[in-house]
């Protein structure tokens, strides 16, 4: 029986060895693959143990914070309407915006290597680091209040650096309730998940006149005082017509033939600028779009989109449409805010940014690492930019953007409408303030509104709050 017993024992020992080998396979070889499977509940549990850093506005107001007990942490957004600027953090639907772009910082995993090893050894979840945005909560509130229930977007930049002070997109969503509402949000025809300010592509329409005028002035094709052809003639388009955004009873409104380009501009008359299209030519127009950066996606931690330039128009009619902002070019409100900033900054286009500083270490009161400043790029000669700035000031005092005028009279801007589809108009306003020494630039877009004055009014409200 001894032999039999030895054989049986050997058989059992082989069984133990095979068990050990398979255990090593699951525990070492396949461990990373198993750990990263989305149905592994440990991923979520580990996530709930991390005290994620806060996201603050420039004055230290909390925009996003982690609340609760370790193991049951949840993300809380005290001001949910800032979602377009911040994004969201969801265990089910992932990360977006600053939450995604600064995930490593917020989780605290990109700190000191040895400390990370030590924490990992002790099973200590990393302590998140805070991120401070350029956003100004008061201004952001004003932008949200000014837009109200209307669909649209507001982008407010600080000058000369291009820091984003407010970024509103309506309708928006509540990131605190994302998990419960995501499916409804995704299928909502109002597209609340779309960030209209940086990703919404819109027909620029009359508000593109600033860009076209800049190109024409720089090339010496026209001067501001030159008489504009067909000054008050409406522009007939398939699906609707565009005419001057004139204010009734305004003495300086263009009266017919002989009115100047300046008068046409301040009242956002489309036809004279359409006529500039063939005179400038397709190459010049495209080169102008490119110089203003309309064909590029501004680099921000939140998702942005490049303007769509489209194919070069083949004939004069297409060129006319392109110069009137009714061609294939579509842009985001952020692009237009940068156009306003370029004029305000005497031809230099600032690079927008959203994150002001990140905490150097994950400790209370730790030092802040400021974001590296990015240099503005020259776009226009100062003379042309100044001429346009003057024209924009006139548009507010005497023209279509009068609604943007403030009691202390410092806003410069341009308001107009765009034909977005058959019978559908969007209202635009771009501007800056104060007119003589600009500190803020703005772009406002209101969907389904044919009233340029309405956009100007929203812009004025937001600018006024920014000054206070």
């Amino acid at each position: 029986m001894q032999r039999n017993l030895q054989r049986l024992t050997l058989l059992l020992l082989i069984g133990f060895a095979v068990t050990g080998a398979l255990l090593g396979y699951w525990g070492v070889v396949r461990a990373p693959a198993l750990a990263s499977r989305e149905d592994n509940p440990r991923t979520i549990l580990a996530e709930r143990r991390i005290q994620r850093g806060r996201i603050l506005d420039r004055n230290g107001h909390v925009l996003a914070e982690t609340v609760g007990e370790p193991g049951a942490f949840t993300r809380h957004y005290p001001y949910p309407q800032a979602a377009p600027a911040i994004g969201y953090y969801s265990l089910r639907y992932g990360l977006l915006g600053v939450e995604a772009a600064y995930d490593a910082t917020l989780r605290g995993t990109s700190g000191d290597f040895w400390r990370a090893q030590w924490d990992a050894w002790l099973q200590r979840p990393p302590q998140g680091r805070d991120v401070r945005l350029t956003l100004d909560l008061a201004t952001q509130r004003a932008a949200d209040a000014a837009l109200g229930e209307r669909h649209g977007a507001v982008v407010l930049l600080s000058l000369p650096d291009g820091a984003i002070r407010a970024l509103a997109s309506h309708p928006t969503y509540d990131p605190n309730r994302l998990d419960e509402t995501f499916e409804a949000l995704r299928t909502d025809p109002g597209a609340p998940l779309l960030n209209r300010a940086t990703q919404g592509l819109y027909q620029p329409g009359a508000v593109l006149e600033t860009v076209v005028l800049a190109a024409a002035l720089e090339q010496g094709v026209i001067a501001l005082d030159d008489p504009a052809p067909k000054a008050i003639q409406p522009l007939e388009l398939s699906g609707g017509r565009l005419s001057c955004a004139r204010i009734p009873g305004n003495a300086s409104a263009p009266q017919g033939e002989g009115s100047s380009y300046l008068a046409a501009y301040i009242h956002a008359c489309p036809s004279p600028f359409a006529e500039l299209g063939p005179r400038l030519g397709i190459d010049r127009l495209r080169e102008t779009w490119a110089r203003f950066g309309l064909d590029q996606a501004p680099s921000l931690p939140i998702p942005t989109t490049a303007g769509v330039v489209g194919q070069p128009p083949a004939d004069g009619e297409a060129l006319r449409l392109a110069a009137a902002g009714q061609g294939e070019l579509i842009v985001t409100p952020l692009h237009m805010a940068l156009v306003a900033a370029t004029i305000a900054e005497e031809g230099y286009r600032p690079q927008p940014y959203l994150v002001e500083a990140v905490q150097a270490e994950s400790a209370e009161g730790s030092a802040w690492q400021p974001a590296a400043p990015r240099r503005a790029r020259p776009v226009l000669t100062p003379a042309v930019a100044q001429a346009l700035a003057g024209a924009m000031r006139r548009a507010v005092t005497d023209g279509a953007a009068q609604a943007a005028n403030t009691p202390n009279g410092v806003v410069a801007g341009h308001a107009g409408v765009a034909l977005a589809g058959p019978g559908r108009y969007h209202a635009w306003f771009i501007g800056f303030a104060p007119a003589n020494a600009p500190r803020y630039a703005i772009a406002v877009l209101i969907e389904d509104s044919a009233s340029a004055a309405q956009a100007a009014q929203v812009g004025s409200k937001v600018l006024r709050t920014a000054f206070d």
Partner: protein
Amino acid sequence: MAAWAALLPRPARLPPYLESRAERIQRQERVLLMLGGLFLILNILTLTGVRGEIRLLEIAIPPVWAACMALAHFTLSRLRPIHDPILLPLAGTFAGWGVILMDRLAPALLGQQLTWLVVATLGLVSVVLLPPDLRWLRRFRYTWLTLGLALLAATLLLGVNPLGDGPRLWLNLGGIYFQPSEFLKLLLVVYLASYLHEKREMLLEQTDDEGQKTEDKRRLASILRLPSSAPYLAPLLVMWGLCVILLIWQRDLGAASLFFIVFLGMLYLASGQARYLIAGLVLLLLGGLLGYALFDVVRLRVDAWLNPWPETRTRAFQIVQSLYAVAAGGVLGRGLGLGAPTLVPVAHSDFVFAALTEEFGLAGAFAVIAGFAVLVVRAARAAILAHTAFRTLLAGGIALVFGAQALIIMGGNIRLIPLTGVTLPFLSYGGSSLLVSFIMIGLLIQVSSDAA
């Protein structure tokens, strides 16, 4: 201890040449027990530290454990001065580890498990108090058989499940749930050892040469091979068939396959006929296929074993969660109290091995595997050194039970074989299992005292 010593029967006087050996054995056992105790205390400290609170029952674990082990150690030293000094510390440390795992995984059951540890220790001590020749065990084999069948019948008729739904494998004895299949396992081993031994003795009566084991084996084998061996084999087959049918009836697949493997192993042990093993494995495979065709529970387990990945949230949930726990453990583990082993369903019983691997890592899991390997080897050693064939068959059968049961549940946890619900001896929650395991350790210690 002095009072206890007065109650104990007078130990047999050792011949002088064995005295130093007895002392060495006593010392070795004491050192090993202390190492085990140290391991448990470190774990309690870790758990208390991680939880940041002191629990009375938790603090009670080391003293209760120490008292149990001291009692067993003292009794063994007095009554069986020569015995295998590894068995008690190994079983004791595993059982203590099991209690700590209950504390970690299902704190509500800690008190029960700790009580069962005391009961199990008393069981072990009782076995050692009984006459060392184990003749009583051999003599009353039909009593054991009848008892086993009665238990099974009782389970069939009166069985309950403490959790409500599920297989009704327990008997309710005044609020204490008790799992007859655990005892049945022990009774099966005793009965088989006795029966095979008797057939062997019958054989020995016909031959003059008692000492030649190879001869024995050959003769026994020839008897089993001949058609005339059928009458001898028939009771065995009936016994087996009854067990298996009843167990399949109750859907207790783990116990059914364990019984069958132990039956095959002991038959091979006695006969040396590999064809029994092969035929038996073919039968097992056929049984598995039949079960797959007939029973949902078998189909579910086999499907989840073959390819769990498409159904990780439904039918293969358990096994996939078990693998996740193993993967989360890595080499050194997450640390006691720091993992998430309670994500695995029934982590404290069927999946205690996966839960242990998550927090103690491959290091801890390999320690468990090595512990069972050592247990099997020591049991086999005791079997080889045993004085009588009955004792050899008994110890060999116990080695098979421990080895096969550990392999079935560990292999099931890591997708080596389809998952079946048996306990991991000593470590899983379950009083019946712990008590029977300790009784088996007691029997092994009895057999190991033959080495004197």
